[in-house]
């Protein structure tokens, strides 16, 4: 076998491996969601939109969807200023406790979600905010904040260290410098991080599971509860909703930042 074809074989093996294990399950779920039958099956038992209709007609689904959205918005709104300022401070200034702070910020990320979830459940219970929805968004923010910080820090590290000095030299006072130079210059990282936080909070399952009760289930928890009984095709339809939300996020990212920038900054 000649060398080029050996390489082609290698490349195509990887391509097919990717397609089969990454794309295929998604495609199967999408197709299955259009079934006309009463059980999830592939190939689908006829084609219809009945399960999508049932999604919109079932209050528990739409409510759970809106709750997840609410959680995601809370998480994003908190993490935008917190993550941005933390990242700029850590990447830009020599902090005395930079090392410990970094480890501290990574903690929620390295500890199993089930453990942080349990801890938050206890703390939230103690301060009597368990059973409300906003603490779920807060928890998602605390756990995923490293992603936000990384995204912004990648942008900050690309900046010239003299950028703020240059602004001062142009006559801009410190606060004006931050608003007109530092912040716009790291905006690609802020947008990337913000969208990442949104999607992570929207999808968050384990921590949600431990912090919500029956009155305020989020969409992933509802799906989890449902699959423990009968797996009906409306779950496939929900899966498609998730795929659509993910695609919309990527589309927004591409429009605002450009995917090349995002992929390079990682």
């Amino acid at each position, binding site marked *: 076998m000649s060398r080029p074809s050996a390489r082609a074989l290698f490349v195509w093996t990887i391509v097919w491996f990717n397609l089969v294990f990454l794309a295929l399950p998604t495609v199967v779920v999408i197709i299955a969601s259009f079934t006309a039958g009463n059980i999830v099956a592939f190939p689908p038992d006829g084609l219809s939109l009945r399960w999508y209709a049932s999604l919109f007609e079932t209050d528990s689904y739409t409510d759970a969807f809106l709750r997840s959205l609410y959680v995601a918005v809370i998480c994003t709104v908190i993490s935008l200023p917190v993550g941005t300022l933390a990242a700029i401070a850590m990447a830009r200034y020599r902090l005395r406790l930079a090392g410990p702070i970094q480890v501290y910020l990574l903690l929620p990320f390295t500890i199993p979600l089930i453990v942080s979830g349990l801890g938050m459940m206890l703390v939230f219970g103690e301060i009597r905010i368990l059973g409300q929805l906003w603490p779920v968004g807060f928890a998602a923010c605390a756990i995923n904040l490293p992603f936000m910080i990384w995204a912004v820090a990648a942008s900050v590290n690309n*900046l*010239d*260290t*003299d*950028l703020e*000095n*240059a*602004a*001062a*030299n*142009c*006559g*801009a*006072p*410190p606060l*004006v*410098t931050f608003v*007109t*130079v530092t912040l*716009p*210059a790291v*905006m690609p990282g802020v947008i990337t991080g913000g969208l990442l936080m949104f999607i992570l909070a929207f999808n968050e399952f384990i921590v949600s599971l431990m912090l919500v009760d029956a009155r305020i289930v989020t969409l992933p928890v509802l799906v989890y509860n449902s699959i423990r009984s009968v797996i009906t095709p409306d779950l496939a339809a929900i899966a498609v909703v998730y795929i659509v939300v993910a695609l919309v996020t990527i589309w927004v990212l591409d429009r605002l930042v450009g995917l090349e920038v995002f992929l390079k900054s990682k």
Partner: protein
Amino acid sequence: MVRLDGVTKRFGTVTAAEDVSFALHQGEFLTILGPSGSGKTTVLRMIAGFMQPTAGTILLGGRPVSELPPHRRSIGMVFQRLALFPHMTAAGNIAYPLKMRGFPRAEIPKRVERFLALVQLHGLGDRRINELSGGQQQRVAIARALSFEPDLLLLDEPLASLDRKLREDMQLEFRRIQQELGVATINVTHDQREALVMSDRVIVMDGGRVQQAAAPQDAYRQPANRFVAGFIGVTNFLACTVLEAHDGEAEVEIGDHRCAGRSAAGGEAVGRTADAALRAEQVLIGEAGQAIAHADMLVPATVTEVIFEGDRVVYAVDAPTLGGASLRIFDHDPLHHKTRRIGETVTIGWKRRDLMVFPRDA
């Protein structure tokens, strides 16, 4: 315009700049020349206001500025890595200082156009920074630093990253713009050629201290000490013993030879070890055993290296009677001079006044 009086900067136990004093006049172009770590950038950053001196005062336009934050000083600066604002266009960058310094709105676009033209970037104002070439980015940085007509322009080695051809073009460009606007300028560089080409005056720094402040020709012709002699130009140093020293002249012994040279040393140097300095282009080469026209000193030598560089030939020769020293010699007229071969025995010589003697510190 600008005056530094005994400015010192310490970081913990490290002294980055010590007792630096100089004054700069309207329209003057001053270069601070020194190797990295010499304190030249520290001095520049203190003038810009990014650092506070540990001791001493900096005066701008006659007023001490220690209390004045950088954004209140009328100083334009071109940074080493340019520090252009990546989210703005070229015109946006140039307009930024105008907006920040409260220029009338109506005047800003006209000014931006004028400075784009000054740095020869007509019609490129709408480009984003990453769409411009390295040389064009340089020009935007210059225009940004000058658009508000600062009292003082600071250049922090902005040309260091350019390739040689572009760097030499930009040196002349800087000089042209600086003279056109008549703005007092302090340039910081480790490139001695750049310092000689661009400046009215050169300050040579090493180890945080000013070694010499002089016009480029004077720094070259009459270096104040061994460091300056070695840093500007290519210089051979020969260990010698001082026999006599007075009235700007010194008699020294180098190996088996007695020779005379220029020296600022006085009688206290007699008997001490010193460095005799000879610039590579001031050493002449002649036939073995024969005299060389215009040369006062003649020494036998053997050629050990010959490098043809087009506009000059670089030789290395061994001179056993000069204490076994090896010398570097430039022949700047290779087309009219015989090119020597490796191993050839020659006579080297120099004029009496081309030898400079620097006593070593006790």
